C-alpha cells in the first residue's frame, strides 16, 4: 500500500469516527452545537489522531507540535505572480508537517492575516518568513521592511525576490512610459481615454469624502529583496522546485524539533554550483548551428542537446539544482535558477555560449562586422531573453538614456 493510500485510509477512518461522534445521544445537544463548542478549545486534529495509533510514515509527517511550541510562519508576495505561494502547496502531504510545526500568521493568498496583525507583533516574533516577488512599489518595500523587522529568518523565495525576475524587465522602461502605454495605448484603455477630454491616470492619493485614500507608488526601478533588506537564505526558481522546498523544510524541521544547526547565512537552498548542462541528461555533441529554431518548428530529438538542435536554451548560463525538468520535456531552459556562483551576469555568460554556437564560416576572414551582425541578429531580443530573470540584479540593472555630447 502506497503512502498516499495509507493517508487516504487514515482520513477515511478519521472521518468515520467523526460521523459516529456526530450521532446525537439522548439528552445531548445537537451535533452542530457540540462541534462548535469543541472547536473552540480543542482542535479536531488532536481528537481524531492520537499519535500512538499512527503508522510510522504518518508519524514522520505529523510530528505534533515542536517541543518549544509551534513556530510562527509567514509568506508574503511582492511583485510576483502568486506561483511561489502556490509552490508551497506543491509539497503534497508534507504540508501536514508544516501545519503541525507552524502557525501561519500571515499569508495573504491563503490565510486571513492583516498587516496590522504583523505590525502589532514583537520584533523577530515570526520565526520564518518567505518573501517572494520583486520590490516594485512602495507597498512591496514597506512590507518587506516590516517583515524583516518582525522575522527571525527571512528567506528570499523565488527568482523575483532574488533577482527581480520577470517584473525586473520593467527596468527597460520607466514608470511614465509604462503608465502611458497601459493607460492610453492599450486598445481597451484607448477606447476609454477617447471619451475623456484629457487622459486620465490613476493617482496615488485621492481625496474621497470619507478621507484621503492612498495607493502604492510604482517605482521606476524594480529591485531584488536583498537590495532593500538583509536576507538570510535564498531559494531560487520560478517557482522553486519541490526538492528545494523539501531541503528548506528539512532544515527548519531539524532545527525546530531537534535543535540541529541551520545552514550558514546566505545559503542558496536546493541549488548547485554547476550549470544546468551538468545535470541535463541530453547528449552534447557541441554541434554548430546555422539557424535558430523554436521547439515547435522541428521534431525535437529526445536525446540530443537542445542547443545542438538550434534551440536557444539558457542552461549553459544557469545554475543547476532543479533537475532539468524543462529540457527533459524538450523545452529550453529559461534560466530561472539564475547565474552560477562563478559569474555575476547570467545574460553575459549566455551571450558567450550563444556566440560560440555559430560556426566559423569559410569566408570568415573576408567578411566584415556588418555581415556578422546580420548572422547574430537571428537572436531576437538578447537582453529580454537572456536576462529574463536577472535583469534587476545585473551589472547594469536598468535602461539608460544617452544625453548626447556637446
Amino acid at each position, binding site marked *: 500500500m502506497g503512502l498516499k493510500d495509507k493517508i487516504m485510509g487514515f482520513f477515511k477512518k478519521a472521518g468515520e469516527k467523526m460521523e459516529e461522534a456526530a450521532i446525537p445521544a439522548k439528552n445531548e445537544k445537537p451535533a452542530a452545537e457540540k462541534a462548535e463548542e469543541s472547536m473552540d478549545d480543542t482542535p479536531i486534529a488532536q481528537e481524531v489522531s492520537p499519535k500512538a495509533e499512527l503508522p510510522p510514515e504518518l508519524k514522520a509527517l505529523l510530528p505534533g507540535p515542536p517541543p518549544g511550541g509551534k513556530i510562527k510562519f509567514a509568506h508574503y508576495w511582492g511583485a510576483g505572480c502568486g506561483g511561489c505561494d502556490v509552490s508551497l502547496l506543491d509539497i503534497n502531504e508534507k504540508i501536514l508537517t508544516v501545519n503541525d510545526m507552524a502557525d501561519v500568521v500571515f499569508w495573504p493568498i491563503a490565510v486571513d492575516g492583516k498587516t496590522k496583525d504583523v505590525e502589532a507583533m514583537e520584533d523577530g516574533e515570526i520565526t520564518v518568513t518567505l518573501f517572494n516577488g520583486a520590490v516594485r512599489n512602495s507597498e512591496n518595500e514597506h512590507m518587506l521592511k516590516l517583515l524583516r523587522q518582525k522575522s527571525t529568518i527571512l528567506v528570499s523565495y523565488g527568482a523575483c525576490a532574488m533577482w527581480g525576475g520577470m517584473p525586473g524587465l520593467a527596468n*527597460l522602461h520607466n514608470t511614465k512610459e509604462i503608465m502611458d502605454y497601459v493607460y492610453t495605448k492599450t486598445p481597451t484603455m484607448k477606447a476609454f481615454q477617447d471619451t475623456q477630454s484629457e487622459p486620465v491616470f490613476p493617482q496615488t492619493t485621492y481625496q474621497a469624502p470619507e478621507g484621503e485614500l492612498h495607493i502604492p507608488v510604482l517605482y521606476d526601478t524594480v529591485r531584488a529583496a536583498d537590495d532593500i533588506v538583509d536576507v538570510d537564505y535564498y531559494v531560487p526558481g520560478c517557482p522553486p522546485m519541490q526538492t528545494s522546498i523539501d531541503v528548506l523544510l528539512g532544515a527548519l524541521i531539524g532545527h525546530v524539533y531537534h535543535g540541529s544547526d541551520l545552514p550558514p547565512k546566505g545559503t542558496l537552498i536546493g541549488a548547485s554550483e554547476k550549470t544546468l548542462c551538468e545535470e541535463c541528461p541530453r547528449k552534447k555533441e557541441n554541434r554548430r548551428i546555422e539557424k535558430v529554431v523554436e521547439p515547435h518548428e522541428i521534431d525535437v530529438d529526445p536525446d540530443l542537446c537542445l542547443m545542438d538542435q538550434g534551440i536557444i536554451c539558457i542552461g549553459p548560463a544557469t545554475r543547476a539544482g532543479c533537475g532539468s525538468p524543462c529540457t527533459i520535456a524538450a523545452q529550453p531552459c529559461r534560466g530561472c535558477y539564475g547565474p552560477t556562483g562563478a*559569474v*555575476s*551576469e547570467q*545574460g*553575459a*555568460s549566455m*551571450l*558567450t555560449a*550563444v*556566440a*560560440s554556437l*555559430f560556426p*566559423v564560416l569559410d569566408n*570568415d*576572414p*573576408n567578411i566584415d*562586422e556588418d555581415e*556578422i*551582425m546580420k*548572422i*547574430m*541578429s537571428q*537572436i531576437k*531580443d*538578447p*537582453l*529580454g531573453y*537572456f536576462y529574463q530573470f536577472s535583469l534587476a540584479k*545585473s*551589472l*547594469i540593472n536598468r*535602461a*539608460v*538614456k*544617452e*544625453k*548626447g*555630447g*556637446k
Partner: protein
Amino acid sequence: MSEEFDPKVIAFCCNWCSYAGADGAGVARLQMPTNFRIIRTMCSARVDPEHILSALAKGADGVIVLGCHPADCHYIGGNYRARRRMALLRFVLEEYGFDPKRLRLEWVSASEGDKFQTTMSEFIDDIKGLGPNPLKEVA
C-alpha cells in the same frame, strides 16, 4: 560637470597582436590622446561580455576590444568567436539604450602601431561626440 568632457576609455588588447601594436605605437612615439587604459588579455576571445558590462557599469565612457586580424589569431579562431560575441553584446547595449558606438571592435596587428594610433584617436573622438556614459549621472 567640467567644461571639457574628458572621456575614460577601456581598451582590451590581445597579447599577441594588438598589445604589441600598442607597444609599437609607443616606441614610435606616435601622438594620441591619453584617455584610454589598456587591459591586456591573452586573446580578444578572452574578453567576456561581463568585463565590458562591468567597465560600463563602473563608468567607462567607451570600451574598445582590439584583436588580431581575422585568420591571424594566435589561437586560430579566437577572434571569430569574439566578433560574434561583440555583435550580440552590441544588440544588448542598444536595448539598454546605450549608443552601440560605445563598444568597438578593431583588428590591430603587432606591426600596426599607426593603425593603433588612428583607431584610438578616432574612437576617443567618437566618444567625445557621444558625451559621458549615461550611467554616470544616475550615480
